[in-house]
């Protein structure tokens, strides 16, 4: 750097010398060589600089080109399926052309919401502990270092491993609470469920529910009149009909309240939306919690980075004014780091929406569902799983649907991101 102006000076010198005294061989040759060398040197450096600049441009645009190629090819493949059916309908096996992804959009958003609700407080809390409350005590300092090390490791763990973790921890809960089985109420149903027996009435396709008293008894045989409930939940007396007592009642209303003598009822659990049970089983809650684990390290690291970027002088000023560590964190560090935290959070949530592997491990590959989850323990279809399934189908229609679904997924992601950018902008301009 420092010899550059020197060289410039010298070459300027040399030029004037050459003009005035062209006949002087030795010094001019010497000077000339110097000047030529300097000039070519500068040229080389400058052209190298230019080359490097264009290389950077090329590299930067390469990633954009790849994205554009991807979008164009997907758009081309999927545009024929970008109809309102895609948004409004659910997966259809009988009419593939009318298949849609509505339940999976809802499912993805809900699962992502759960993971955010769990991972954001946990992640931001951990980051605050790691950055703002660095312990002085030796034991705590070791713990601090240990946590820090582990989080860095966790961020590099493949998501499918988190899927297996979620399967053991959330879906089966180490079998501590027993297993979820069909035909048997689970032992740890905490709230939101009523057990009934379902018995066919004399009217075809119409059933009667009988409240279940003893849960260990999975079936009931009705041989004498007992109390049942109708569709609106009102109790009424069930009437019994058997062949000996004459022909079947002709009146529809009566038939609806009558069962055949000896009719068998199987168990049925009516669940409210807040139905809660342990273990979680293959439910959307388990999927959300698992994805929460996946994005937790991402959130922690992003929050740490943005807290670290807050100028220490701000903190020191606050502490110097007599504020406690908590007051400093709450009033100074957190607000200043908020834009960064929000960016990290939204990137993490974007990852949660796009993850297929852990959801596949936790929930399995069921895709046919007409609605989003109806209770906390209900199963769910997410967009990546649906795309994964469609892309593996032999029919062309499903291939196109998969492409169209990818577009929808990207749009949802972009929408989420732009909300984040907007919020961040608002916070920053404050």
């Amino acid at each position: 750097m420092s010899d550059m102006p020197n060289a410039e000076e010298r070459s300027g010198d040399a030029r004037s010398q050459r003009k005035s005294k062209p006949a002087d061989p030795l010094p001019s040759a010497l000077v000339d060589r110097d000047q030529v060398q300097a000039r070519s040197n500068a040229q080389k450096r400058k052209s190298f600089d230019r080359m490097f600049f264009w290389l950077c441009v090329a590299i930067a645009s390469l990633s954009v080109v790849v994205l554009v190629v991807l979008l164009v090819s997907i758009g081309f493949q999927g545009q024929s399926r970008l109809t309102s059916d895609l948004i409004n309908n659910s997966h259809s096996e009988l009419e593939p052309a009318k298949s849609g992804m509505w339940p999976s959009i809802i499912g993805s958003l809900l699962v992502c919401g759960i993971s955010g609700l769990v991972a954001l407080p946990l992640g931001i809390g951990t980051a605050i502990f790691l950055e703002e409350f660095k312990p002085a005590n030796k034991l705590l300092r070791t713990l601090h270092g240990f946590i820090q090390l582990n989080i860095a490791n966790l961020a590099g763990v493949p998501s499918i491993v988190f899927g297996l973790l979620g399967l053991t921890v959330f879906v089966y809960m180490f079998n501590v609470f027993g297993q979820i089985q069909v035909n048997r109420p689970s032992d740890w149903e905490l709230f939101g469920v009523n057990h009934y027996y379902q018995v066919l009435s004399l009217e075809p396709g119409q059933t009667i529910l009988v409240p279940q008293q003893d849960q260990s008894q999975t079936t009931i045989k009705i041989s004498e009149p007992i109390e049942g409930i109708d569709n609106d939940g009102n109790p009424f007396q069930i009437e019994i009909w058997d062949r000996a007592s004459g022909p079947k009642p002709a009146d529809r209303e009566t038939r609806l309240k009558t069962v055949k003598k000896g009719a068998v009822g199987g168990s049925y659990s009516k669940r409210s939306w807040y139905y809660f049970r342990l273990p979680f089983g293959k439910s959307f809650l388990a999927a959300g919690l698992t994805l929460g684990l996946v994005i937790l390290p991402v959130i922690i690291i992003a929050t740490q980075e943005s807290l670290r970027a807050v100028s220490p002088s701000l903190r020191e000023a606050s502490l110097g004014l007599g504020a406690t560590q908590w007051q400093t964190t709450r009033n100074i560090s957190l607000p200043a780091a908020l834009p960064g935290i929000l960016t990290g959070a939204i990137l993490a949530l974007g990852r949660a929406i796009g993850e297929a592997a852990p959801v596949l491990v936790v929930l399995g590959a069921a895709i046919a569902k007409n609605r989003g989850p109806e209770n906390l323990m209900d199963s769910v279809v997410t967009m990546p799983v649906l795309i994964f399934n469609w892309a593996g189908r032999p029919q062309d229609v499903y291939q196109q649907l998969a492409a169209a679904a990818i577009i929808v997924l990207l749009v949802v992601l972009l929408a989420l991101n732009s909300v984040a950018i907007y919020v961040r902008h608002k916070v920053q301009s404050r």
Partner: protein
Amino acid sequence: MKFTRPPVALIAMVALGLLVGCDSSKTTTSAPTADSVQTDSASESTLVGDIKIDGSSTVQPISDAIREAFIAQHPGVKITVGGEGTGNGFKEFYGKATDISDASRPIKPGELEKAQAAGVKFVELAVAYDGLTIAINPDNDWVKSLTVEQLEKIFVGKDAAKKWKDVDPSWPDQEIKIFSPGTGSGTYDYFKEVVADKQEMRGDMTLNENDNVLVQGVAGNKFSIGFFGVAYYTQNASILKAVPIVNPEINEPVLPTTENIASGKYAPFSRPLFIYVSEESLARAEVQTFVEFYLENVSTFCAEGKVDYVQLPGDLFERTMTIFDDVTTGTHFIDADGNSREGAFAELYVAESLDAK
């Protein structure tokens, strides 16, 4: 700089926004539910309940199709159809986690033992046929047909044929490129059972769980060969060529056409698909109604091309109906000593197989 409360409030707002987002989505989903319940309660079924199905990904499309038609009539019934593979399906089934297990092969002795130990009794219902197609590249002009022995040379063992020449000296001196479904699939199991007997399959095949990858692999290389369910062949018939397989009994090559699969002529690669229904679950009205609906419709769905499988011949389907009507539990394919029975499906799927127990 004003670092006071508002940011905290803003965080709360964002969190709330998330929640509200969830809530609003919930209400919009429940809206159609309420509608359907209203319209249905007047005339249609009030059947309610949960049915859990898991198992073969080959049978999953059939079960999904039936499910779709079923819930159009009985909107109160919730049916989950998983497709984690026949083996995993049975694991869930004897773990009492599912009511119905889809299977692309009969239950194995080990699985039966566990089911018996867990006290799970079941009815074994064959619902359709699937033809396993061995496909080659359309440019392949030397393979006219293959025998099971030739397939064994290609697919089985460490010293399997490396080049086409090794199978038949008149074939080209080119390396064989092999595409096979993953080891977890029932398709792989079935092929292995027919071709490899008790030996190991060769280790240097391209395995993939996604059958479309296999299709593309075979279509992209002149010297390749692969196998998958017939659905993947019929959907890609323009870029693949199905190999006629020599039926060992009549000793003539047979193509995997619908007729040949249905008549059993496409042996030994037409395989039956099953559903296994837990006897305990069958006591529930919704399961009973669903399985009845399944059996009433599955053949029509196959015949109308709504699912890419082949309907069972009448006499075999008669047998399925009998088992369902009588609720005869047990499997046809394992004898009283716990050993697998050998023989053609049609010969084993008879009343005597169950009576022998």
